[in-house]
């Protein structure tokens, strides 16, 4: 049996008396297209923070490709192959896409401590060029990120995570706030993500979830309510009950 790309085992996180994550266990297979959905306040953000190492769990374990990373720091987990994007853009406003991507690639290659040779190694430049083309950022490659249209910033958000060459990629509402006319670019970029990278999509937008994921996990009040294929989830009475009144057709 091959190890899961990412696995949560009995994760619990308490904030004082509040149990934000309550005994959550699930796994993401290598190359999977999985989604995690749940209403507001279901504990999605806490769960991501536990998986990426921003928060330490009160109980339970996180395994990355079979290796226990529960006590491994967030930046070290990135080096081990777990990258993420953010629901609210977390970019470098004064850096250009080229510089931002160059930074991410340099760090991945372990050149982040190189203080003497100038940036711009040939292999890194080639990879930057490839990523710019893949995410449609060629026209704004040298602009400061703060001057980019919002949709381009969203694409850079994903491109940066991909520049880490992850084995597992957590996408936190990648289409959040993107205007309708730029939405297509995001969807196309998601569809074109490398097939061997396992992806866990955290999303509100049910259209996006059902078009992208082959497996869906539903989180409610910090607990995993159910898991299944899109068809199973769509037919599940409990999921319907949770989303009743919400803007969804699950």
């Amino acid at each position, binding site marked *: 049996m091959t190890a899961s790309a990412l696995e949560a085992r009995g994760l619990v996180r308490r904030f004082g008396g509040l149990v934000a994550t309550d005994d959550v266990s699930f796994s993401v297979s290598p190359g999977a297209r999985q989604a995690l959905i749940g209403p507001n306040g279901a504990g999605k953000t806490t769960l991501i923070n536990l998986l990426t190492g921003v928060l330490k769990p009160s109980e339970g374990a996180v395994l990355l490709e079979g290796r226990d990373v529960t006590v491994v720091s967030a930046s070290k987990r990135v080096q081990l192959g777990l990258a993420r994007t953010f629901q609210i853009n977390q970019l470098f406003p004064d850096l250009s896409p080229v510089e931002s991507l160059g930074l991410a690639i340099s760090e991945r290659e372990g050149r982040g401590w190189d203080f003497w040779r100038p*940036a711009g190694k040939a292999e890194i430049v080639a990879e930057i060029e490839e990523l710019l083309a893949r995410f449609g950022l060629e026209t704004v490659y040298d602009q400061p990120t703060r001057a980019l249209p919002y949709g381009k910033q969203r694409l850079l958000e994903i491109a940066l995570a991909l520049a880490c060459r992850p084995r597992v990629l957590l996408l936190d509402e990648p289409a959040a706030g993107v205007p309708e006319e730029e939405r297509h670019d995001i969807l196309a970029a998601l569809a074109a993500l490398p097939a061997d990278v396992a992806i866990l999509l955290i999303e509100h937008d049910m259209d996006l979830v059902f078009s992208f994921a082959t497996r869906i996990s539903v989180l409610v009040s910090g607990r995993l309510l159910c898991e299944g294929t899109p068809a199973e989830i769509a037919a599940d009475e409990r999921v319907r009950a949770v989303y009743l009144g919400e803007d969804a057709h699950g």
Partner: protein
Amino acid sequence: MNADAIRAHLRRRDRWSILEIAFWLALLVVIFAIPSRAALINEALVAGLFALSLDLILGVTGVVSLGHAAFFGVGAYTAGILANAGYDDPILGLVAAIVPAALVGFATAPLLLRGADLTRLMVTMGVALMLGELANKNAGLTGGADGLNFSVAPLFGRFSIGSIGEGPRNAALFSLAVLFLLFTIARRLAGSPFGLSLTAVRENRLRAGALGVSTSRRIIAVYTIAAAFAGVAGALLAETTQIVSLDLFDFHRSADVMLMLIIGGAGYLYGGVIGAGVFIVIRDVVSAATPEYWEFWIGAMLVVLVLFGRERLTALVGIRR
């Protein structure tokens, strides 16, 4: 856009522009043109190096400090104590100053990793206060409240950097050479992958961490380097004035160096050098007219710069960063 354009963009600040070369040549010319003001020019160059060291942490990495005089003082006292003990070669003094200044930087950097900017301002201020008192207490070594008066051997055994004859001019040339050398190192560092990661820490520490940057270690590293730079600046001042006293650790030194950096503009390395020059010239010119109130004009300038923004002011006179 192609690979060449990407590389050119990444390295756009690597090549020395004509403006930069002119800037350094102008400094050299000024020293020879007005030898009567060599002592003042020397003071500005030393302050410029001190401000450059602050720029590495404040401008490049975004870590605030109101206690940068700590490292300036440690460097100055290292050179002073050595010279006082007979080890009075100026270059030896500068090199020796690096070690204790960097060590103090390395030891205190972990205090800056948590908390907000206000915490950092207070912590750095506290460290400078403590070091000042340590120097006061260990009078046997430091001369206590009296400080130390000493003399320094001629540079390369030939060029006096004392206060007599060509001494002040030689001192200014020496300071310019040291400033240029360390500036070149800082410039190189800023254009490297390490420098890029420091900018990333400044711009968005959360995301830098999410890209695998060990942000805490980068901050400790740059703080140590900046401390070493400040230590050299302190040693340079000690050797060219041949005196050290407790005011080297004073709060006003930490505040002045931040002022200089803000006046010149943080984050592009030249700001500290330019700001130090402007600060010292204004002090000299205005204090000749109104000796007691010269800081009024520095204060006014600060308010204008911060409120209106340097970008708009520099755009107004057509200077591009």
